[in-house]
C-alpha cells in the first residue's frame, strides 16, 4: 500500500486519508496502543490509591521522604499525582511502551503486506528485539525529559537574576506564550528525530546503535515531511496540555479528584490517538522510503 495514495507525493490530505483508511481496514493494529493505555490507566489508578492499603507499603515511604508527609493526605495527593504519574509513565513507556510500539510497527508491516495478523506471534517476534527497543525508548524519553526542561530553566534564571525584559518583552510573554510554543516545537522535533529508529529495529532487524544512527539519517533526509506528519497529531494533545496546566483551577472549581480524570483523558488522547497516529504514519513512510533497501 502506498501512503502517498495517488502518487502526488507530499499531499498531506492524501497521507492522512491513507492512514485512516489503513486503520479502518485493519483496526487490530491499534491493539498495542490500547494495551499500553490500559497499563497506564492501571498505573494511574495505583498511584491515585498510593496513600491507601496495600499500595501505601510501596509508595508512602518515598512520597513521605521526597515530597513530605502532607502529600499522603487529601487533597494534596491529587496535587502531587500529575508529577509522580509523569515520572512513572516514563518508566512504563521505557519498559512496556517500547514493546507495544514494536508490536504496532510489526502489525502495520504485516497489514501493509496483506499478511495475516497474529498478536501472539508478533509479541514473541518483537520480544526478541526488546533490548534494542527498550534502549531506544530510554534514549528518547531521557532526552525529552532533560531537553524539554532547559528553556524554562534558562528563562527562570534570566528573570530571577533581576532582568525585567528580554528583547523588549516581559516574563509574561516568555513564560505564558513563547515557552508553551517552544515546548510543543521541541517535542515535535525530538519525537521526529527518533521516530524512524524503532522501525529500523523491528522491520530491518538492526541493533540499537545502528538503528539510532540510521533513524536520525532518515529523519534528516525527510525532515520536512516527518516534522509535518508528527506535528499534526500532536496538535490534538494541546487541549490536554491546557487542561493539565489548569488542574489547580479545575480542582478548586470541581473537586481534587478531577485531576485523575484529566490524566485519564491525557492517556486516551496521548496514547490511543496521538501515539497511534504518529506510529502508523511514520511506519508507513518508513516502509515506503526503505522498500528498496536490502
Amino acid at each position, binding site marked *: 500500500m502506498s501512503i502517498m495514495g495517488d502518487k502526488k507525493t507530499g499531499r498531506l490530505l492524501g497521507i492522512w486519508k491513507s492512514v485512516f483508511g489503513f486503520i479502518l481496514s485493519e483496526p487490530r493494529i491499534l491493539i498495542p496502543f490500547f494495551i499500553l493505555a490500559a497499563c497506564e490507566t492501571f498505573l494511574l*489508578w495505583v498511584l491515585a*490509591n498510593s*496513600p*491507601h*492499603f*496495600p*499500595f501505601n507499603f510501596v509508595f508512602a515511604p518515598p512520597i513521605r521522604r521526597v515530597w513530605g508527609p502532607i502529600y499522603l*493526605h*487529601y*487533597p494534596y495527593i491529587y496535587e502531587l499525582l500529575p508529577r509522580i504519574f509523569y515520572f512513572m509513565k516514563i518508566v512504563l513507556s521505557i519498559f512496556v511502551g517500547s514493546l507495544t510500539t514494536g508490536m504496532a510497527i510489526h502489525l502495520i508491516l504485516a497489514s501493509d503486506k496483506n499478511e495475516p495478523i497474529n498478536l501472539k506471534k508478533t509479541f514473541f517476534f518483537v520480544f526478541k528485539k526488546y533490548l534494542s527497543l527498550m534502549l531506544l525508548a530510554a534514549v528518547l524519553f531521557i532526552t525529552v525529559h532533560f531537553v524539554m526542561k532547559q528553556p524554562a530553566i534558562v528563562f527562570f534564571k534570566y528573570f530571577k537574576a533581576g532582568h525585567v525584559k528580554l528583547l523588549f518583552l516581559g516574563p509574561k510573554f516568555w513564560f505564558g506564550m513563547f515557552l508553551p510554543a517552544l515546548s510543543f516545537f521541541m517535542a515535535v522535533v525530538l519525537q521526529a528525530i527518533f521516530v524512524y529508529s524503532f522501525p529500523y529495529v523491528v522491520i530491518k532487524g538492526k541493533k540499537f546503535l545502528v538503528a539510532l544512527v540510521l533513524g536520525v539519517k532518515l529523519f534528516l533526509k525527510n525532515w520536512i515531511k516527518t516534522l509535518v506528519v508528527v506535528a499534526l497529531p500532536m496538535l490534538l494533545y494541546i487541549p490536554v496540555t491546557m487542561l493539565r496546566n489548569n488542574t489547580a483551577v479545575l480542582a478548586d472549581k470541581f*473537586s*481534587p479528584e478531577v485531576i485523575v480524570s484529566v490524566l485519564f483523558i491525557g492517556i486516551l488522547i496521548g496514547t490511543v490517538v496521538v501515539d497511534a497516529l504518529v506510529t502508523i504514519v511514520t511506519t508507513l513512510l518508513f516502509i515506503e522510503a526503505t522498500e528498496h533497501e536490502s
Partner: protein
Amino acid sequence: MKVRNYFLIFLFVVALCGCESREFKAERQMWRAHKRAQAIYKNPKGTPPFQLAQVQKEYQKILDKYPKSLFSIQAQFSIGHLYLVMGDFERARSEYKKLNVDCDKRGNLCAEAIFAIGQSYELEEKWSQALIQYKSILSSFPFSSKSLDLPIYIIRHYQRTKDAAGVNRSCDEALSYYASLKSKTKAEKGDYILDSLIARSLIEAGRWQEAVDVLEKTVIRYPNMGPDEALMLKAVIYKNKLKDSAKAREELQRILKDYPKSKLTKQAQAFLGKL
C-alpha cells in the same frame, strides 16, 4: 498457576483498594465542608439560612462520625466561625464552648477556643468581656502559642482605639507577663524569644528608647541568635523615630564590622548611603 488464579489475585487487590483510611475519608469530608463554607465566608449577609444549615449539617456529620478526632474539633470550630461571620455571636460562643478538648493535653486548642470566644465579644464591640477571655488565656495557658502573642495583640487594640493610657498600661502588663515567663524558662532560646517579645511590645507601644535598650541587651546576651537583625532594627528606630542619624550610622557600621557575613550587609550599606 493458571490465568484464572492471577485474575482472582488481581480482583482481590482491586477490592482492597476500596480500603481508604478513616482519616482520608474524614479529610475529604472536611475539604468538601470547608469548600461550601467558603461561599458563606465570602458573602455572609447574602447567605440564605438553608445554605448555612447545609454546611452545618456537613460539619455535624463529621462530628458524629469522628467524635474523638482532631477533625471533630476542627468541625466544631468551623460551626462556631460560621455563626460568627453571620453575626450571631451568642450562638457562636455556645458552639465554641461545646468543644470537647482535654485542656491538660491540648492547651493550644483550648487557648484557641477561648480566643475565638474573645473575638466574638470583640466583634460585638464588648472589649471588656473580650479582655476577660484573653486574660484567662494568659493565666491558664501561659506557654501556648496564642498566649505569647496576646499581650501585643492587646496593645495593638489600644493603639487602634487611640487610648494612650491603655497602650501604656497594657505595655507594662506585657512586660511583667513576659518577665514572669522568663523566670520559668531555662533555655537560652526561650529567653531570647521572650526578650524579643519585650522589645516588640515596647515598639508597639511607641516606647522607642526603652525598645533600643532592650534590643542592645539582646545583641550582647544572645550573640548566636541573629544580633545583626536587632542592630538593623535599632538603626531603623534611631533614624525614623528618634531622629538620631549618627546613632543609626553607628549601628549599621557595627553590622558591617562585626557581622561581615550577615545577609543584611547589602541592606546596611544601602541604608548607610541614604544617611
